C-alpha cells in the first residue's frame, strides 16, 4: 500500500542552489498535501501545505507545486542552506477520514556548504 511515494531516498545539493524534492501519489481522493521536515531524534515538523484547489503555495524559501493531473507534488527550497539538511516527508489526506495523513518514505536532503 504505497499511496504516497517518494522515489528518491536521498538528495545532495550545494549551498545556495535549489533543492527539489518530489512526491507522487496514486489516490485521486487526496485533497490536502503537506511537507514535513525531520531531524534525527526529533518528530516531524510541519513545513508547508497545499490544498488541491491550488497549484502553488509559497512560504519564504519554500514553495510547493501541485500537479493534479500527474498526481505529483514537489517542494522547492531556494536558496538551500546547510540547516535544511534533514529528511523530508510528503503527506496526503483524504477528506472526512479523521484527519488521517498518508506519508511517503522520505527523502534525505544534504546541503553541502
Amino acid at each position: 500500500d504505497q499511496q504516497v511515494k517518494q522515489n528518491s531516498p536521498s538528495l545532495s545539493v550545494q549551498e545556495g542552489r535549489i533543492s527539489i524534492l518530489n512526491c507522487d501519489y496514486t489516490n485521486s481522493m487526496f485533497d490536502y498535501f503537506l511537507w514535513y521536515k525531520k531531524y534525527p531524534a526529533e518528530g516531524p515538523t510541519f513545513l508547508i501545505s497545499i490544498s488541491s484547489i491550488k497549484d502553488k503555495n509559497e512560504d519564504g524559501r519554500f514553495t510547493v507545486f501541485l500537479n493534479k493531473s500527474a498526481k505529483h507534488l514537489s517542494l522547492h527550497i531556494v536558496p538551500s542552506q546547510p540547516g535544511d539538511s534533514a529528511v523530508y516527508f510528503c503527506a496526503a489526506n483524504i477528506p472526512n477520514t479523521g484527519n488521517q495523513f498518508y506519508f511517503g518514505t522520505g527523502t534525505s536532503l544534504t546541503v553541502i556548504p
Partner: protein
Amino acid sequence: EPEVTQTPSHQVTQMGQEVILRCVPISNHLYFYWYRQILGQKVEFLVSFYNNEISEKSEIFDDQFSVERPDGSNFTLKIRSTKLEDSAMYFCASSPLAGWYTQYFGPGTRLTVL
C-alpha cells in the same frame, strides 16, 4: 512555543508485556494522533482521537492497541501484549480545531521489544 511532549523517550520491554506510551499534546488542541515509524520505513498512521473518542484508525490499530485521554492533559497509547514487530518509533501529534491539517508532532518514543 508550545510543544508536544512524549515519555519515555525509549522503552524496552519483553515480548508479551504491556506498555503504555504517554503524550502531552499542546493544551488548546482538540485532535490527537498516534503514528509509528518502523526503522527505515515510512511514518504510518495508527489512530486519531477527537471529542473523547476514536475518529479514525488504521488496520494496524488492532485489538492489541488502545488509546485513552485519562485527564485533561495526557493522551496515552497502550499496547496490551507486545510483539517483536511492534518495535518502532511512536509519534504522538496534536492539531487545533481550526487548521486541523497542521499536526504538531512530539519527539517520539522508541519502543524496543525483545
